[in-house]
């Protein structure tokens, strides 16, 4: 009962948010920013407001700032702008950020671009708790190989290509018109751990490195280099198990007004503004959120008469279909999996007996507008028991889909086996039975009606 009430509420909430055309989490956005810093991010903030986010500005040390009221989230999204402060104040401890994410809220963290600025303790604590590692104060990424401006002394404004991913990963961060646009970047970079929940969004160019500007000003020795090359991430996204998103941007200038400009070297607009939109849209769940519109399965025994039945027989064909859609800013659209990726179905009893791809196909029995139907047909294993249809679709950047449906797989009924005469090996044995039957009937007949010949020949019968 509670579950249904809750799902109705969830549906209502998503309806409301649909009608407003914004983030699936919600529009209430907290900006933790000082006035002077806010002036540097006017475009970012106005772009967000134009997309339907409502912003509330607080200073980091604000005493009236609270993330929870009556144990409910006050904000859906939080943006932490660089402050230069060593601490963020009592209401913004790393634990309260985690609590916010646990309650489903998203966080975008902009780290200072300047190596002179401090990173608040609660931010570095939060980062290490989600397997992201920040260099200490004073580090900066340089790239001698492709400086944005050859006359710049420090070589620390980088030209970075827009992100590209392996062919099995959907790219949500290159949706701007100019795919070849370069990003302007300045900052310290970050390293990420091996957790699958953390994904690098933007990586450093191959020969770039992050070094300690104070200790290693003349030569980058082993001890003073934080990381280099493709291991060095510039933007990283974390998606928690409950699909809340935390994004770290290692150099806030990436999203600042001053980067939304022409790149001197290429004489074209930088890709920063479009990238800022992609990063905020991903973080605040305007993109890459999957929804299961329907699951249908039916078997050979009853055909499409019985859909989503409880019982299947062993060694029967079963068809399973799942309809998936994907949120894109203000509407759901059919979700198309990348070519080299596959939505996979597992048919599991303790261990998967099957793990097979679900190809996109024609709509299932129920036609869902705005969704792609993935379906497949397979033969149930020759093992009876309680099996589970499981679709465990977890991919970088996409919200998790983990659907399970338990069904019984029964063995053959007594009248479903091959009859004995259908088995050629049994023919001699069946013949044996009938030989005995006929022989016995014949014996009874002879016993009843035979006339003793011996008695006739000898004239007397022995008793």
């Amino acid at each position: 009962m509670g579950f249904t009430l809750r799902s109705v509420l969830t549906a209502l909430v998503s309806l409301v948010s649909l009608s407003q055309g914004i983030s699936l989490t919600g529009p209430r956005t907290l900006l933790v920013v000082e006035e002077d810093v806010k002036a540097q991010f006017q475009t970012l903030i106005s772009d967000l407001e134009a997309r339907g986010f409502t912003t509330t500005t607080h200073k980091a040390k604000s005493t009236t700032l609270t993330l929870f009221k009556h144990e409910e989230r006050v904000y859906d999204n939080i943006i932490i702008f660089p402050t230069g402060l060593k601490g963020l104040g009592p209401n913004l401890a790393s634990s309260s950020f985690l609590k916010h994410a646990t309650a489903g809220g998203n966080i975008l963290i902009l780290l200072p671009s300047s190596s002179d600025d401090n990173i608040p303790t609660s931010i570095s604590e939060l980062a290490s708790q989600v397997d992201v590692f920040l260099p200490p104060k004073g580090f900066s990424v340089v790239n001698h190989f492709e400086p944005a401006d050859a006359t710049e002394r420090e070589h620390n404004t980088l030209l970075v290509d827009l992100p590209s991913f392996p062919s099995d990963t959907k790219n949500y961060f290159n949706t701007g018109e100019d795919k070849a646009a370069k990003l302007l970047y300045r900052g310290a970079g970050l390293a990420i751990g091996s957790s699958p929940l953390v994904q690098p969004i933007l990586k450093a160019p191959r020969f770039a490195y992050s070094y300690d500007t104070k200790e290693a000003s003349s030569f980058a020795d082993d001890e003073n280099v934080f990381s280099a090359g493709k291991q060095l991430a510039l933007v990283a996204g974390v998606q928690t198990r409950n699909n809340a998103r935390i994004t770290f941007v290692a150099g806030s200038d990436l999203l600042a007004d001053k980067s939304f400009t022409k790149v001197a070297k290429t004489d074209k607009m930088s890709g920063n503004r479009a990238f800022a939109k992609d990063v905020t849209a991903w973080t605040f769940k305007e993109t890459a959120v999957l929804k299961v519109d329907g699951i249908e399965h039916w078997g050979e025994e009853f055909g499409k008469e019985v859909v989503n039945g409880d019982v299947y027989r062993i060694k029967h064909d079963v068809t399973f279909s799942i309809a998936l859609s994907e949120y894109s800013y203000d509407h759901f659209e059919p979700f198309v999996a990348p070519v080299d990726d596959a939505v996979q179905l597992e048919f599991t009893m303790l261990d998967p007996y099957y793990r097979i791809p679900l190809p996109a196909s024609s709509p299932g029995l129920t036609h869902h507008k705005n969704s792609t139907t993935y379906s497949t047909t397979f033969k149930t294993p020759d093992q009876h028991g309680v099996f589970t249809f499981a679709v465990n679709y977890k991919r970088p950047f996409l919200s998790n889909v983990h659907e399970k449906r338990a069904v019984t797989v029964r063995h053959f009924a007594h009248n479903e086996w091959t009859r004995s005469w259908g088995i050629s090996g049994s023919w001699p044995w069946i013949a044996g039975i009938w030989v005995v039957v006929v022989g016995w009937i014949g014996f009874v007949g002879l016993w009843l009606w035979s006339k003793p010949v011996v008695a006739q020949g000898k004239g007397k019968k022995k008793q």
Partner: protein
Amino acid sequence: MKLLPTSNLLAAGLLLCQWVSAAAPSAWTFADATLQISQKGAEAGPKQKFTSTSPISDALSLKATDSLKILLTTKEGDTAKRPHQLFLFVKDTESELESFFAFDVKESGKARLDLTLKDVPIALLSSPSLSLTLALGSFGQSEPLSVEIAKVIPTLDAATKKALPAPGPKYQKLNEIHHIFRAEPRSPPKVISLVFLGAVAACLPVLFGAWFSLSANVSHLPKSLAASPIAHPVFFASLLAFEAVFFAYYTQINIFQTLAAVSIISPVAMLSGSRALREVRARRLNGER
């Protein structure tokens, strides 16, 4: 651009550098470069020379305990000088996986890197082939240099391979699994079944033949029918009916229908049987059997 006070000097130097290089643009390069492989407990191998245009052509085959020593002198244009960056990038040739090692460089530009293969991350070691790339660059306008100097084929012994940790979980497509069904039950070749079927069926004529050759006959049938015209046919028919019911049970009907049929036939068989057997006894008592 805000500069640190401590790096003002450097900045001034860089500015000078820049001014100089603006006049004569130069490039970072290296000279006297050698690579030496040494194996544990053995003498160091020969020094292999390489330059920025001619890398070491043969792929180096290295065991986990082997180490590399690379010596070179970095130059900006023609003057030996220390660059800010001198890294050796070790890259898996088949993926994006890459790691780096910083050289130890003196002010004079003399650089040295001692690299034991076991220092290379395990994920790289398990790849079939690695490429070594030198990256050399610094502040200012001199052209940086990146050049692939050698290829390495890591050869791991079985024990090392076994000790490699399993790769961590990754959100991606997993290997397909298809259920392997048990083999269908099989019958022997039909010919053999048919031969034995023939042999079994042949028992019947043999049996009857034997009985008739021992002078079995049905000559008393007319006499029996005359003596008890109902009991004999009914008794024999009820026996046939039993067999028919059993046949029906084998092919179609269930146990309850079978029991019902048997319960109808049984009294008939009992009554008619006792009458028929009484007639048989009468014949025996008459000495006709």
